[in-house]
Every structure is written in C-alpha cells, then in structure tokens.
C-alpha cells in the first residue's frame, strides 16, 4: 500500500515498553511569512527556547520551508543512519529508484545533544519509468517505506521538496545549534520541544513528523488513538511508531493529499462541531457537516491536542474541539505566529496587529500570497 512510513526494528528504541502510544507534553511554535519571503532561524529558535520549561530535553525539532531554492525541483531526503552498513545498503536502494542529483553529509557542529546518528542529505529525482501506474508521490512513499524497514538502522525523517526537517534528542535550541540552523532561511518555520513520559527519546521519535512535504508538530495525547489508528489501517497505513502524532500525519495525508478535501473541512473532521452546533447551521450546511461526522467519525481526534501542520505554501494551526491544549496566534505585518504560549510570540514580536486564542476546532490558516489569515468558524461567525 501507499501513504506509509513504516519502521521495523526501531520499535524497541522508540517504544521500549510497548506502551499503547506515546505519552508526551510539549511546546509548539510556528512562524510564517505570508509573502513567502525567507527569514533566518533567529526568531523561531528564540521563541521555542523561551518555552524551555515545557520540554525535558528528550526531543526537539524544526521544519523549514523554502530552504533549498537551488534544488527546489528535487526531493530532499534527510536520512539518519545508525550504522555504516545501513548507509551502504540504503545508498544502493536509493540509486536503484532515483537519480541522485547531489548528496552530502549534513553540516553539524558539536552541541549539547545526546548520541547523534550519522545524518546524510540527498537531492533525488524519481526514475519515472518505474512508477508502474502509481502517482509519483505514492512511488516515493513506497521507496521511503522500504528504506525505513529494510535495515532497521536507516530512517528517512524528511522527504519533501524545498523543505527540510531537523530533529533529534535534546532541547530544541540545542538541536538548532547541532544542525547549524543559523545557516538556513525559510518562509515557514515550525518548531517543537518535547516532554515524553515513556520514551527515552530517540532521534527519529522527535517532532516534526513528516511525509513528503507535510509536517506535523503536536502537543497532546489522543484518547481516540485506538480507533484513529484502526481506521487508517483500513486505508493501508501501518501505524508502527505508536505515537499519536503519526496518526495525525497519516490523517492529513489521507484526507488532504489522497481525498483532496480542503483544510476547512479536514479541520472539521479532526475536531468536529457538536451535533447541537451542526443543527443550528443552514440546511445545506447541516447535510455537509452531518455527513462529515457520519463518514469520518473514526478520524475525530478526541482528547487534547494542539498542532501546527505545514506543507508547501501553507501553515495551519488547530486545536481539539474543546481546546484542552494551549494555542495562541498573532499577526504582525507579513508574519503569522502560532504558539503554545503568548509569551514566545511577544518575545519575537512585542507589537502585534492582532492577537487571539483560536477556539477549539477552528483552524488558523496561513497561505502564501494571502494576507488575510483564514479562521473559518461555524458558531462564532454568528456571534461576531
């Protein structure tokens, strides 16, 4: 099947106690230039570092969009290796399925991080004659799945075009240091600091989670994980990471990439309005939102979460339907900020044109070229 990032033998490292799921608290931060202008790591790193107390040093990471303009037509793979053998094997697999345009060891420098793996960067182009009727994206995902399972010691943690994920075990500011993020510029930065309660933290288990150019940073624990996972399994996703962030990433992949639903509706699947709210809508809209809950009820993400999701040209913030995790938003000039805490937004932009706390289930959608940030809402529209 497709749409799957599977990892085999790393199970033991990522979830040594075989818990139902990852139990973690976290800080999240997202910053986007709505004109698509690139900016440095300075503000995002300061902002996430400001929420140091929300993490415990067992995971930090960043997703940066627009960082590889010279290679923007090629998939940029960031790969962690736990052994030289795994790299040799993976290089062969990559070479058989892709034209490798350029590859190099990721620039890193000594930093306050624990046991860093070897990290390699590849710019690749799929060999088109090998698609066999699949879409190019599904082909790429199949290959990623193979790499991630065949050795158990190689893990592709970033796989989109003109974007990159940098993550590992450490506080986010230390991860930024380690990966020399001061050398990069992007128009979206999403950031994560992690507080896992049950995993010792391994480099692949840090956020953001990624498929193609989709990334998710997540704070929360899904009480509905058991059924979210079983529903996605029906569509070929293998949830082997045992983290609830993984099901969020797959849900976005299924609903937005494969089923082509807009984020305005996807947010109402993940965090739907109450039946009583649906009944107050106009007749035609009642049908739509009722059908969404009837059809996709198993993808309702129940329990606390706040997430920042990004893909090319778009950054989205979303809370669970009764807002059990913090998420605040701010706008200043061309910049959209999303954060677990207002303090981090005020740190990097003391003056804001607009500051608000999005309601549960109401997405904040930033799009490149679109100065008005969309905050589609059902109930509040009438009230406002």
């Amino acid at each position, binding site marked *: 099947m497709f749409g799957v990032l599977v990892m085999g033998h790393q199970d033991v490292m990522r979830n040594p106690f*075989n818990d*139902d*799921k990852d*139990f*973690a*608290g976290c800080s999240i931060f997202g910053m986007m230039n709505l004109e698509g202008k690139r900016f440095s790591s300075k503000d995002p790193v300061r902002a996430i570092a400001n929420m140091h107390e929300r993490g415990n040093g067992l995971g930090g990471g960043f997703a940066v969009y627009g960082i590889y303009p010279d290679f923007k037509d090629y998939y940029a793979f960031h790969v962690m290796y736990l052994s030289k053998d795994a790299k040799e094997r993976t290089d062969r697999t990559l070479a058989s399925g892709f034209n490798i345009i350029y590859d190099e060891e990721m620039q890193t420098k000594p930093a306050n991080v624990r046991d860093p793996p070897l990290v390699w960067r590849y710019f690749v182009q799929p060999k088109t004659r090998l698609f066999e009727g699949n879409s190019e994206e599904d082909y790429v995902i199949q290959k990623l799945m193979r790499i991630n399972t065949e050795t158990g010691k190689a893990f592709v943690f970033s796989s989109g075009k003109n974007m990159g994920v940098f993550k590992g075990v450490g506080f986010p500011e230390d991860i930024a240091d380690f990966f020399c993020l001061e050398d990069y510029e992007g128009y979206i930065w999403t950031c994560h600091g992690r507080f896992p*309660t049950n995993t010792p933290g391994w480099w692949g288990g840090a956020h953001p989670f990624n498929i193609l150019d989709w990334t998710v940073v997540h704070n*929360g*624990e899904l*009480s*509905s*994980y*058991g*059924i979210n996972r*079983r*529903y996605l*399994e*029906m*569509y070929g996703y293998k949830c082997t990471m045992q983290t609830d962030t993984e099901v969020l990433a797959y849900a976005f992949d299924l609903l937005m990439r494969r*089923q082509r*639903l*807009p984020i*305005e*509706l996807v947010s109402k699947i993940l965090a*739907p309005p*109450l*039946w*009583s709210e649906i009944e107050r809508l*106009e007749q*035609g*809209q009642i*049908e*739509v939102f009722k*059908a*969404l*809950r*009837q*059809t*996709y*009820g*198993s993808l*309702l993400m*129940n*329990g*606390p979460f706040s997430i920042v999701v990004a893909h090319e040209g778009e950054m989205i913030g979303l809370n669970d*339907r*009764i807002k*059990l995790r913090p998420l605040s938003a701010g706008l200043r000039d061309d910049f959209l900020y999303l954060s677990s805490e207002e303090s981090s937004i005020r740190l990097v932009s003391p003056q804001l044109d607009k500051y608000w706390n999005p309601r549960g289930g109401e997405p904040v959608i930033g799009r490149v070229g679109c100065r008005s940030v969309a905050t589609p809402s059902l109930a509040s529209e009438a009230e406002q």
Partner: protein
Amino acid sequence: MKSYMPSEYFVDRDEEKCIRCKVCVNQCTYETHSYDEEEDVIRSKDENCVNCQRCVTFCPTKAISIIKNDSPYRYNVNWTPEAIKDIKKQAETGGILLTGMGCDKPFLSYWERLLLNASQVTNPSIDPLREPMEIRTYLGSKPDKLEIELDNGDFVLKTKLSPQLTLETPIMFSAISYGAISLNVHESLARAATEYGTYFNSGEGGLDPRLYKYGNHAIVQVASGRFGVHSRYLQSGAAIEIKIGQGAKPGIGGHLPGEKVTENIARTRMIPVGTDALSPAPQHDIYSIEDLRQLIYALKEATDYTKPVSVKIAAVHNSAAIASGIVRAGADIVAIDGVRGSTGAAPKVIRDNVGIPIELAIASVDQRLREEGIRNKASIVAAGGIRSSGDVIKAIALGADAVYIATAALVAIGCTVCQKCYTGKCPWGIASTDPWVAKRINPDIASQRLTNLLRGWSLEIKDMMGGMGINAIESLRGNRLSLRGVGLTDTELRILGLKMAGD
C-alpha cells in the same frame, strides 16, 4: 405416571402476617396458591412455583418468601440437581426440554473479564455534568470518502449517503415478536423508543396497525415464517431486518403455540386464530449468500431504497466470514446475537450449547471487516446478554456501533428471568397474550420504566466516556486500547484484540 420431580421452590408464608386477602391466589398463574374457606387459610402447591416473585412483590403484608430447594439430591459435582431433574423430566414426557430466556451457564461471559480505562495526568478526564458528551449514533452504510465542492463560499455535498438510522443513545430494543408478548408490551417498547430517540424491533410476528404511528422508531423484521409481512408493514418501519438466526437457538426455527394466537395476533400475523405459528429453521428462499443478496435488494426495491436493511444472525463459529458475506451482499447493518441471547421458547439443549459468546463475535467480525476494508459499509449491532451500561460500553469499545437489549428491557417492566416464558402463563403479563394477565402491563407505566432505563444507562455511558477523556461515542467505537483483559489466555486476548491488564 407418578412424577419423581421434586419441588424447585418452597413457599414460606408467615401465617401471622397473612391477612387472607387472596392477592397471591389471584396473581399466580401457575395455581400455586389456593384459599381453603373451611379453615380460613391459604395453602400452597410448592411444586407449581417457578419463583417469579409476583406474589412476593404484591403481597400487601410481605408475608411470603420463596425458598430455593437447595438439596433435593446428594451433592455431586457431575450429577447436579439440574442434570438429574432434566433426565427425570424427559423420562416422564419423552420430549424436547423447553426453556425460556438466555443461557444461564456461568462460563460464557467475558464482560466481567474486560476492564475500562480512565484518564490520569497526561490527558484530562471530561466532566459530563459540565461539558457536552455526545452519544448520538448513526446506523447504516458509510462511503469511503465524501466529494464536497465549494460553491459561492458554501460547501455542497456531492456524495449521497445511504439511508441512516439516528439513535440518541446506542441502545435499541431487540426483536420480541407480537404473540410471544402482548400488544401492551409492544406498545410500551414502541413508546419508549420513540420518546428517547431510539428504535424497537417488531420481531417476526408483524406489527399491529395500531402501532404504525410509532413506525419512525420501528425496525420491522422479516423472518422465515414471513408472518405479517406485507407492503404496508415494510413501509411502516424506519428499517427492515432480515432475521436469519437468533442467539438462543441458532439454526432452528420457532414455534408459537396456537393458544397464544388470539384474534388480533392472528390478524397481524395473517394466520387463522388458534393455529400454531411455525417459523421454519432456514428461510426457504435463502439457501446461500446470493439468495440473501436477492432478498436484501427485493426489500430495498419494495421500499424505494429509503430504509437501511439489517441482517441478523446468531453468533456462530464462522461469524466473521458470514458477516463479511452479508456486508458484500448489500446489508447496511449486521446484527449479531450471542450465545446468551434470549428467547421466549427454545430447546434447552440448543440454548445452552450452540453458538459463541457475543464478545468474541463482535471482536472477530469488526476485525475481519476492517481487514477487508469494508467496515464502513455496514454498522454492527451486538445483542445477547447485555445487562448493564458497562456491557454496552465494552461492546462498543470492542467494535459494535450499537447494542440491542431485550431481557434488560423486560426486566425493567417486571420480568424476573424465571425462564418460563414458553408456558405462556407469565404472571407479570409480559410473555403472555392471555388478556387476563396481559393487562397487568400498563403501557403508561411500562414505557416510563423503559425510558428511565435508557436514561440511566445513557448517563452512565457518558460518565465512563468522560472518565476516559472522550466526548463523542465515535471515538470509543472500536477503540480497543480503552479496554484491558483480566484472567484471559493469550488466545482469548488475541481474538478480542486486547492487551492484558497491567501490560
């Protein structure tokens, strides 16, 4: 022939309390009590007593206790009193032993060995007294995906959904046929289902036209006898259920004795007054899955595709494969009735020995339909031995969309599970069509008791959901991480798809 059967119960009457009011004499339909005018004393024939508790409940001075005859025979692990009595009974009658209600053996229940989760620290529990807690459930086929277009800022639904049943609580009243029970009981179930926003099932004896006004909350059944099946009947219900099997008696048909077939029942069932109503073991137009498909679509055609069609089977060894076939045959709902499912009359040997527990059937059917990628094509309704809201919520966590209850509903209106429904003499007026006892059920009171039961269970379900940090029932459905097993083998845990408690 002199009967060797011992009395099962003794009637203990406190003569000082007894005021000779003769309530017990009038209430008992088994003629256990009689009044001796000469000596001004009430006497009892202990051998007639079935321990239904009717006289105990209605005795105004609480003078009566029923005492179990605990030691009619010498203690023996193998030759239990039940085994010995069954043999004596058959030696005296030469027939099949009949019984009523569900299997009463202790080894077939898994509910007690399943435990629910609750939130602590890493995610918050939700207080259902202060926050919304949604248990509305829709039954019917769901599409793989929705096509929705944006038109002038409004979303327009392009995918047409199949017809759905709307349940305000995931509990429905299971099939109990008119004839097995009286009109008053049917009416009570219909009114409670209507008031609470759920459904009652007509059972296989048709629906008295006086109840058509509750049709929006009726599931009308089509069984092997086709009693009372006609176009107005099909049109009257919100959904149609094809009954293939029943948990209490998988593989066999039914027999309503002619004595119970009164005039109204005869008219509703479309048979002569006083004749036995025999339901054949199979549906004689369904000898295979392709025949089932034809009946499903015949019923859909007959109702213009406006009503979901359910197929009810008894939980048996190959339920998962059978359910898969039923879904592929076009059913919108699969109802599964477990080995502890109830009946008005069934051969005892079948009730106690045929079928599988509903817990295992839910787990294997839900899992199979997921593996085949068709779980969304039909809803699963679980039945058979559900006694509490705890059982309901566990059934849903295992993978059911909703449950059917029948015994619990009858208990709510008086039944004490004495297991003598097949005699047609129910002193509580439930499993009887004799007008003299049937009027003991007052639909005003009985429907209130049923509504109270639905309300109480629904509140408890919300409480348990809140404790788990879940505020919509769809997040619990099939969410097996919310359950753990205790005292189960690895194989049982594997089939249930659960981890052991503590793991």
